[in-house]
């Protein structure tokens, strides 16, 4: 279905290009391709088997956009991606929307749009647009990309000059999110409950992004949030897998509820080629057993529901922040250094190595040519909290590293 949509949209783009013969109204074609090598020490992170070194992080995007009329614009991008066990280069519609401006400053986008969260979420795949190789992993964990990258619905945007006091920007978005079957959390539920057909149905998402930019454009303060709500299906022959004396088969579309709230606040200050930025993220995921599921289980076992409300206990309500300094040389070189901290559970002591993860990161970027970019990045971590991603190999050593190298080409 998705391949079909991508094909149809690309065909429409080519057709529009033929219809509007005027040179500047013709569609623009662009694209990018990147290959990343990732190596961690002592434990896997982001990608399974990263401790042995992995090339399973590749992306290719094809992009078409055009403006048939002054205030109307269309744009779409097809993405082929492999990220560990996710993606497998299946084409997906990364974004595809129609943009109508009501006035010079205000407009609405309809379709699949990028979710504006913080300063990096919307641009997390745009490698040529930043110095660092990975977006800050404390605030923008790559494993959660499928949940946070885009929304199918509406994006209302606008900006307003504040008569000498800079400029205010606002984005309001809402709609639904589609989560791929290979999202790590889906796999985890499948494995935990022996339910190979489990799916996450991400139905509703809504949020806002607010920003203020100083008159000279050198300072930006922003705040954003997103609220997501969905459900998880279950189809298992024994929900408790031998933990109880009785077998409890469950087949239910909305066996668990999944609610996620995320809030990001931050600023950027630019001075010449330097930029200092910081962001704080409060992330609140919650996965609960539905009342229908509880009633069904209670009916079979004839007693009180043996589990609590939460499906994943003790790992909710996390927060993270980072401080980053980047130097964007007018020539081909750029660099960045940052410090970040992530606490996976506010209720537990932050001194517990399994509950926190701090990192110092060094990034280097070299523009080989206008289109070809080479990047290298080194992270030194302390702590093992890994944002509920892959199992961390039970290695108790809290100090570990991640090294990454990437070549990307865009046109």
């Amino acid at each position: 279905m998705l391949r079909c949509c991508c094909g149809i949209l690309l065909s429409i783009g080519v057709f529009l290009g033929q219809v509007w013969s005027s040179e500047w109204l013709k569609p623009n074609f662009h694209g990018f391709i990147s290959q990343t090598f990732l190596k961690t020490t002592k434990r896997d992170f982001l990608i399974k088997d990263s401790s042995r070194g992995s090339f399973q992080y590749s992306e290719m995007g094809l992009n078409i956009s055009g403006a048939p009329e002054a205030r109307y614009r269309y744009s779409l991008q097809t993405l082929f991606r492999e990220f560990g066990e996710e993606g497998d280069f299946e084409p997906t519609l990364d974004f595809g929307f129609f943009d109508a401006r009501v006035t010079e400053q205000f407009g609405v986008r309809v379709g699949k749009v990028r979710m504006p969260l913080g300063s990096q979420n919307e641009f997390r795949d745009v490698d040529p647009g930043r110095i660092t190789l990975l977006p800050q992993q404390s605030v923008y964990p790559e494993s959660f990309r499928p949940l946070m990258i885009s929304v199918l619905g509406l994006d209302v945007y606008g900006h307003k000059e504040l008569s000498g006091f800079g400029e205010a920007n606002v984005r309001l978005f809402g709609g639904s999110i589609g989560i791929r079957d290979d999202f790590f959390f889906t796999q985890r539920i499948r494995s935990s409950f022996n339910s190979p057909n489990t799916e996450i149905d991400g139905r509703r998402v809504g949020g806002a992004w607010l920003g203020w930019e100083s008159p000279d454009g050198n300072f930006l303060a922003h705040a954003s949030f997103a609220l997501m709500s969905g459900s998880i299906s279950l189809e298992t022959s024994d929900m408790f897998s031998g933990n109880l004396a009785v077998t409890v088969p469950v087949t239910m579309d909305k066996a668990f509820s999944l609610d996620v709230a995320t809030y990001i606040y931050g600023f950027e200050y630019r001075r010449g080629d330097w930029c200092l930025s910081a962001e704080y993220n409060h992330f609140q995921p919650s996965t609960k057993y539905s009342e229908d599921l509880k009633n069904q289980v209670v009916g079979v076992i004839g007693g009180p529901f043996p589990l609590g409300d939460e499906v994943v206990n003790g790992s909710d309500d996390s927060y993270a922040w980072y401080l980053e300094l980047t130097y964007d040389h007018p020539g081909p070189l750029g660099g960045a250094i940052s410090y970040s901290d992530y606490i996976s559970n506010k209720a537990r002591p932050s001194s517990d190595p399994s509950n926190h993860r701090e990192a110092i990161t060094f990034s280097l970027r070299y523009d080989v040519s206008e289109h070809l970019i080479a990047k290298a990045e080194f992270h030194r971590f302390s702590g093992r909290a890994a944002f509920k991603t892959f199992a961390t190999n039970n290695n108790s050593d809290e100090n570990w590293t991640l090294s990454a190298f990437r070549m990307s080409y865009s046109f």
Partner: protein
Amino acid sequence: MFRIFFFFFLTLPLHSEEVLHFYSSAPLSLEKNQLRDLYLGRILDVDKVTVRPVVLPTGASHKALLKEVVFKTASQFKRHWKKMLFTGKASPPAEFDSEKGVFELLRSKNEEKGIWFFCSFRKEKPDGVFEVEVGK
């Protein structure tokens, strides 16, 4: 009701005596903040007419433009447009290698329904193009 507009042929003084001038393919009046918004892709039209900048990325006038009007360095400007492009929000300004090529483009686009414009140190308006009126 009085509405007084102070239009002038660009007065953006630089460290030297060089002054930025803007030329277009059709008559065009812009406020200074509209200039910045057009260069950054925040607005794509003026009074419902598509307006698109052309840049000479290696020229001294381009550096002056970024410093005085856009408030970004050349690297920041380039990265900004990569972000706009690969999120589908806008297409980057057309790039040329020489002023001669740009003025040929402007002259050839006189009849189009949209307007192209370009920034230069050149004081004398070339034949067949228009000078942009820039307000405060």
